[in-house]
Structure formats: structure tokens, C-alpha cells
């Protein structure tokens, strides 16, 4: 452990980045190959390359079902991981996740209202607007997330950062209570559809939705480039950060905004996906042995994608007749990894001074 940083210093971090990139591509390819119908990598690659000689049914499985799912997992994992990193730095708290401001609860309230109140009441927004049920859920959860975010951020100027964390937490509890009440009064079949949403699923995003989903996330990720420097400064705490010329209020506001947009978009399209956002940044710090965001952000993006792809692959349980809820798997796969990393690194408590 003592010699490792020196060695990495001289080599630079590039080998590790290359390794992670290769792993991401490898797992992505494996994800497309494995499933209820196992396919060979050759067929998959040929299909992606646009070869005409492939069985149309296999082609459909690959192009219409597996590819969008894998792309979604990749993008969503990267987004949640980055959002988690931003939140952890901004709140200087290793337990912060992408949803500390209550974005997740807001989204679930939106979806609960749509599925448990409006639909049973016979109010069908989908019929008039000519939208699919899935699009309705996306709209409902995005609206819920955005409303919560606006409420919390409107308080941003009036309270300090620690209070904001607690306000977000309290708001989450309060909103979750509302959701519980709605669930209590709902019929079993409605409840099931809501529960299915709350388990999270990367398979819900179709080719039609990707052109909305992907750019929203990519813009969010790109904006973190401009946050690298102020985020580094925020590691020092408010006073020092300001003394080296950082506008801390502004940096925090944009950081929280970017993180919430990333997290809210993923929740909107895939449901609430826990754990990835906490786990990936810790893994990145552990592997790269740094707190500098210009190195951590790319590392976190790659690790988030890898974790999401792996969790999705496990949840689909290739070779078995069933699939598991994604949210159950993210923690099951991720928690041991984090515990291991913590045992090795030992100085977690000094992570944020």
C-alpha cells in the first residue's frame, strides 16, 4: 500500500483507465450475448456492424431488446455514479448518494400519483396525448423529481449546506409517507405495477426514448467538466475554498443541480436505482488513490457503467427461468465490494476532513 502510489505516480493513471474501459466494453458485449437466448459474440458484432446475413429474429433480439438495455445501463450507471461523487464532495459526506435532496422520493410520488390515483380514477392522460404508458411514467416521475428539486434548491440560499442535507432527508421521509398512504389505499394489481417500477429496470428505455435520455445525461456529464476545479477546492471546506478564489455558493448550487438532473433523469426512465451512486465513487477513490476530480470523474463514470452493467447482467440471471429486481442486485453485488475497499483503506473518516 505504501509503495503503490509511488509506482502509479510514475506510470500515470492511464493503464488503469484503459483497463476499466476495456472491462466496460467487455461486460457490455457479454451483456448483449447473454440472456434467455445465448448468442455468440461474433453474431452480435456482425449485427452491430450491420451485416444482412443474420437471422432476423436474432437481429431483433439484439437490436430492439438487448442493445438499448445495455446502452441504458451504461449511461445510467455513469450518471448515477457521477451524481453520487458530486453529492459526496458537496456535502463532504461519504454517505451522500445521488438522491440526498429527495429527488428519488419526489419521482416515486409522481409515479404513485399517476399509477395509483389517476389511472384507477379513469383519468387517462395517455389516451388524449397519444402516449404510451411508459412515457406517462417517465413524465410523472420526472415531474415529481423536478418539483422536489425546486423546493429544496429554493431553500439553498437561506440555509447552510449541512441543513440542506437534513432538509433533503426530511423531505424524503415526508414524501415517502405520502407514497405509503397512497399505496395503503390501492388495489393489489395497481400496487404491483408501482412496485415493479420501484425495483428499477434498465429494460424500459426503447430506441424511441434513447434520443431524449442519452443527451440529457451526456449534457449533465459534460457540465461536470466545469465543476472539476471548484469541486477540488470544496474538498478544503468552505473557508479555504473561498480563500483560493472559489465562489462556493455558486459551485455548490450548480453541482447540486447537475447531480440532481443526472439522478432525476435516470430515475425518470429506469426507476429508482439505489447503491450505485454511493459505491462507484468510493471504488474510484480506492483504485486511483486520489481525491482530485479531474481523475475521479472519468474513473467514476467507468466504474458506474461497469457496476450497472454487471448488476443488470446478474439481475437478468442468464441461464435461469427468472429475473430478479435490479435494486436487489445493485446492493448485493456492490456492498461486499465497498466493505472490502473500506477494510483495505481504513482512513475513511479522514476522507472529508
Amino acid at each position: 500500500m505504501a509503495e503503490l502510489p509511488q509506482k502509479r505516480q510514475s506510470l500515470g493513471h492511464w493503464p488503469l483507465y484503459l483497463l476499466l474501459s476495456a472491462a466496460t466494453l467487455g461486460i457490455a458485449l457479454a451483456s448483449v450475448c447473454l440472456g434467455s437466448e445465448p448468442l455468440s459474440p461474433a453474431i452480435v458484432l456482425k449485427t452491430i456492424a450491420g451485416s444482412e446475413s443474420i437471422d432476423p429474429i436474432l437481429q431483433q433480439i439484439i437490436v430492439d431488446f438487448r442493445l438499448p438495455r445495455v446502452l441504458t445501463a451504461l449511461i445510467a450507471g455513469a450518471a448515477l455514479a457521477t451524481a453520487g461523487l458530486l453529492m459526496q464532495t458537496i456535502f463532504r459526506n461519504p454517505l451522500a448518494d445521488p438522491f440526498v435532496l429527495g429527488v428519488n422520493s419526489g419521482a416515486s410520488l409522481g409515479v404513485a400519483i399517476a399509477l395509483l390515483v389517476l389511472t384507477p380514477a379513469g383519468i387517462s392522460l395517455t389516451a388524449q396525448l397519444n402516449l404510451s404508458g411508459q412515457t406517462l411514467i417517465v413524465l410523472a416521475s420526472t415531474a415529481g423529481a423536478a418539483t422536489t428539486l425546486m423546493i429544496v434548491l429554493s431553500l439553498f440560499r437561506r440555509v447552510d449546506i449541512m441543513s440542506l442535507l437534513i432538509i433533503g432527508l426530511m423531505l424524503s421521509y415526508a414524501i415517502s409517507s405520502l407514497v405509503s398512504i397512497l399505496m395503503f389505499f390501492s388495489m393489489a394489481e395497481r400496487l404491483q405495477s408501482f412496485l415493479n417500477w420501484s425495483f428499477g429496470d434498465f429494460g424500459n428505455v426503447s430506441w424511441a426514448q434513447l434520443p431524449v435520455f442519452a443527451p440529457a445525461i451526456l449534457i449533465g456529464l459534460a457540465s461536470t467538466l466545469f465543476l472539476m476545479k471548484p469541486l477540488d477546492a470544496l474538498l478544503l471546506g468552505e473557508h479555504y475554498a473561498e480563500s483560493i478564489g472559489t465562489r462556493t455558493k455558486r459551485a455548490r448550487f450548480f453541482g447540486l443541480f447537475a447531480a440532481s438532473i443526472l439522478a432525476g433523469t435516470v430515475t425518470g426512465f429506469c426507476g429508482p436505482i439505489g447503491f450505485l451512486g454511493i459505491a462507484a465513487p468510493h471504488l474510484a477513490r480506492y483504485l486511483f488513490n486520489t481525491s482530485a476530480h479531474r481523475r475521479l470523474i472519468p474513473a467514476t463514470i467507468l466504474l458506474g457503467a461497469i457496476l450497472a452493467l454487471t448488476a443488470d447482467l446478474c439481475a437478468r440471471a442468464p441461464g435461469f427461468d427468472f429475473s430478479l429486481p435490479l435494486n436487489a442486485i445493485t446492493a448485493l453485488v456492490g456492498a461486499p465490494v465497498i466493505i472490502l475497499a473500506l477494510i483495505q483503506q481504513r482512513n475513511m473518516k479522514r476522507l472529508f476532513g
Partner: protein
Amino acid sequence: MNPTTTNPILEAAQLSVGYRHKGNSRIVLGGLDLRLSPGKFICLLGPNGTGKSTLLRTLSGLQAPLSGQLKLGNQTLDQIPPRDRAKQLSIVFTDSIPIGRMTSKDYVALGRHPFSGRFGGLDQNDVSKIDQALEAVGAMSLAHRQIAELSDGERQKVTIARALAQESRLMLLDEPTAYLDLPRRVECMQLLRDLCHQQSIGMLLSSHDLDLALRFADELWILTPDGKLAQGYPEALALNGTLKRSFANENLDWDDEQGSFRTHKTPCQFITLEGSGPERLWTQRALQRLGYGMTEDPRQSRFQISITHGANEPSWTLAQPSGTHTFSSLEALISQLVQSP
């Protein structure tokens, strides 16, 4: 009284510092006229709770003044954009510094933030400035060590290096020696004073260490318990009684002869002491610590101690009503006094 003559970097006129909460303001210090000039090493002293930290936070722009003028260069402090301010003013405060995973060099590199681009990239000039800063505090060997693994003294050096990397003309330090042991405190003060003079940085540092401040400061600012600020040369403030008025209390007496404070006990017994040299000084300190008072009058004293310097070794003679003893070391004398009250 203001010994500063060169053009000041920071200038305050009728400054009031304190806290504002819901329309009520609590003035901690008021009516301050201050000047900080390049190459001046100023120590800010005062008992706890007199507002040293509040003043430093206000002067560094982290806290708005309640009233009065505060100018950095020619501009009002709170109107200077943070980045420009950071190029002129750096701080070393008591806020705990991070951080799980950061080397000293990465940490010092943060001091280049006011100069680096939007994405924080460092050019050749930045890199050499970082090395110079580490070099200047003698922390080159710590460059690749993790901050979390450094000792308090090493971390303080690196913190000072980070402030140096900002190339500011002014550095404000809040108790930079607080967590250090005595040799490290002396080293730290010496380092800061030398940097101040060599690089012509204006430095203001708060301290509880009156003794070191008296030895190193070009100028002292003393906050008195009644909310006033006395400024002047250390020796002048000692001589005109300002130090005595500010720090003496029921437990502490200013010793005009020694130029330091001594703990004060109401003596119940008096002793006459004869002798000279360092032996006399330390014998006197020991007796005072044990609660004896000094007197010149043999009739008041319960016993006499005289120090004689023989061929090469000093010896102590203790004359008591019960008899006279001679001791070859101070240790033996103290043991005897402790045993027979």
C-alpha cells in the same frame, strides 16, 4: 501610535467586526484602525474570546464587517471578485484540513487555483511555483506523502506552502502554532518570520504564545478584555504596561524583571535568597512554584538559602531553625523542601 510607514496592503478605518443575526448585531470589536504592510510580521494576541478569529475572518473577507471601511489595495475588500482577492490574500486557519486521498503536492497545487484555467490545468510556471512553495517551507520531502499521514507539524508546513503558492502579498494566519510542540512552534514562527521578510509578504498571525510573539514579531496587536486594540513594538508594549493590563489576572503576574508572566500564588512563607547567575534564576522559579515568596528582610523569612559557587560546582546552603544543610544540586534542595513543608 502606528509604526508602519510603507504603503499598506490592507487598510481598515473605523472597522467594527462581529455577528449579525436577524437584524441584531453583536459587535465584538469596534473602532479599529489597522494597516498591514508588506514584509511586516505582526502578531495578534489576546485572551480567548476577545475576537481574534472574528477579526481575522473579517480581514480575510470571509465575514462581512458590521461597519467601517476595509480596503485591500485600492479597492473595498468585499467588492473584489474572489479570484482577484485570492491573488492578493491567503489564509492559514484552524479549519481542519482534509483529506483522505491527496498528496502534499496536490494539496499545495490547490493554491494555484486563482491562476489556473477553467478546468484547473497547471502550466510549467504553476508547477515551479508549487515546488518553490514546498521548498520554501522545507517540505520537499513530503511532496508525495498523503496529507492524512503527516504529523501536525508537517501538515502545518504544507498548509503554509499552499498559502505561499498563492503568491499573495498578504497572509493571515489564525493560531498556526496551536497544535505544535515547543520546538515545532519556534521553528514555525521562525519560518514564517523569514518568509515574511524575504518574500516581503505582509503577515498577521494570531497566537496564544506571548513569549514567542515577543521574540519574533515586528509589531504586536493586543486585544484587551475591554474590546480595545493596542498596537506597537513588542518591547514598547511590555514597557508601557499594556501586556500586564491585558493578560494579568488572579493566576498570572507579569514579571517586569524577567519579561514574562509567572503563575501567582499567595505566598504563605517567605525566604531570603542569596546568589547569582542562572542558578539563582532557577532556584527562584522553583521556590515560587512551591509557593514561597521572596523577601530581602531576614526577619520575615522562615529560612535562608544561599548559593555559593565553589571551584567549579555550585552548592546550596539551606539555613532553617532546625539546622543547616548543604546540597550539591538544585534537585536535592527541592526534594528537601518538598518533604519538609
